[in-house]
């Protein structure tokens, strides 16, 4: 824990940020839908990101998007566009903005906001159907968003 903090701080400093290492969901600043600053202050891990995108329990992005690189994961949806070549179409900051809160980039999109904690109608406690309680948090953590962004950045055609 301690080493991680130190590392994160070191990174934040080197990246020229004066703020605390982790930006909370309520503190993210969007510019034209993009988010320039790392949310966690720690570089994303591509392998973790790949897991999150394919996992039903985590990002479950393949529920809506096909990804050729994830051919080992069964059943890709067709609600959103295939993510192949996403890094050719979007910068890292844009990808971060899309994953954190896609509604900032695509007005009214069906894509869930993965790094948001406020403004929901009847928020529930995960998939229990019960009301949300004090364990309520964003769908993905700051570091998981960074991992996903790192993975998406590898999707070039």
């Amino acid at each position: 824990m301690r080493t991680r903090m130190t590392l994160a701080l070191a990174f934040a400093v080197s990246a020229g940020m004066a703020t605390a290492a982790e930006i909370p969901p309520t503190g993210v600043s969007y510019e034209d839908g993009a988010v320039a600053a790392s949310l966690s202050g720690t570089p994303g891990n591509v392998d973790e990101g790949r897991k999150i995108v394919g996992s039903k329990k985590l990002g479950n992005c393949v529920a809506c998007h096909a990804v050729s690189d994830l051919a080992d994961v069964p059943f890709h949806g067709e609600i959103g566009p295939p993510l192949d070549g996403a890094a050719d179409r979007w910068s890292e900051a844009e990808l971060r903005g899309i994953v954190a809160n896609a509604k900032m980039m695509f007005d009214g999109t069906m894509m869930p906001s993965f790094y948001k904690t406020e403004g929901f109608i009847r928020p529930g406690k995960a998939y229990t159907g019960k009301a949300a309680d004090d364990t309520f948090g964003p769908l993905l953590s700051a570091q998981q968003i960074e991992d996903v962004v790192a993975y998406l950045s590898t999707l070039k055609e």
Partner: protein
Amino acid sequence: MNKYNKIATLVGVWALSSSAAMAGPADDTLVLNEETEMVTRTAAPAHLSDVMDEVISGWHFRGVETRAMQADDFDNPGMIFVEQAQEAWDTADGSEGKSCASCHDGTESMAGVKAVYPKWNEAAGAVRTLEMQINDCRETRMGAEAWDYTGGTMQNMVALIASVSRGMPVNVAIDGPAQSTWEQGKELYYTRTGQLEMSCANCHEDNYGNMIRADHLSQGQINGFPVYRLKNTKLNSVHARFKGCVRDTRAETYKPGSPEFIALELYVASRGNGLSVEGPSIRN
């Protein structure tokens, strides 16, 4: 502000690629027991004309085998539950010593009833679902205990009453005294709930025909309810299905039998006006 130019190109490419993939309802005709041709696709009712042209039964979105199973009463496991309800229909219960048959004679007397429910009840001054009407007969006319709303005994009876209307067009009234309930239901249909912020319309209006993970999205019609699901091998009520769909948006659900689900049921039923009553149907 948004990246409209990028999206426009993107959507162009995407539309091309997905039209080539498996999508859309199966091209097939449902003929029940080799005699009754069912209306499983028809022109959308007037109130939907600005959002869709055609309404399509969930039957078209299921696989070949599931579709075939529903076409023949001997293959339809839902009909076993209908038989059980037939027994309950004839069995006296409650302080008055009466059965449904004591007042309603044979079940044929219920032909056409499912097609118009939920329906405004003048005496109650409210819209009633079939379940509510059945429980009202049990409690006030038979002196019997109410059945659990989504439970087997109740859903078997709903299936029995639906089965004698199969082939008749759904035709729920949305005007007159039912209108305000209908409007409440419409509002709920388009409200994006839960942490995933999704409305019924996101999935069942904007994306029917598309795959969401392993599921082939239908229009979320209820003309086939109660449905026998291969997944849990029993009859499933409309409100249990609603509850499952709302839960899947990571939302706090409404309760089966709640005013919200009654209103939503009236609205969703009206989106299927014109389709044949199909219950009990088969789904995965």
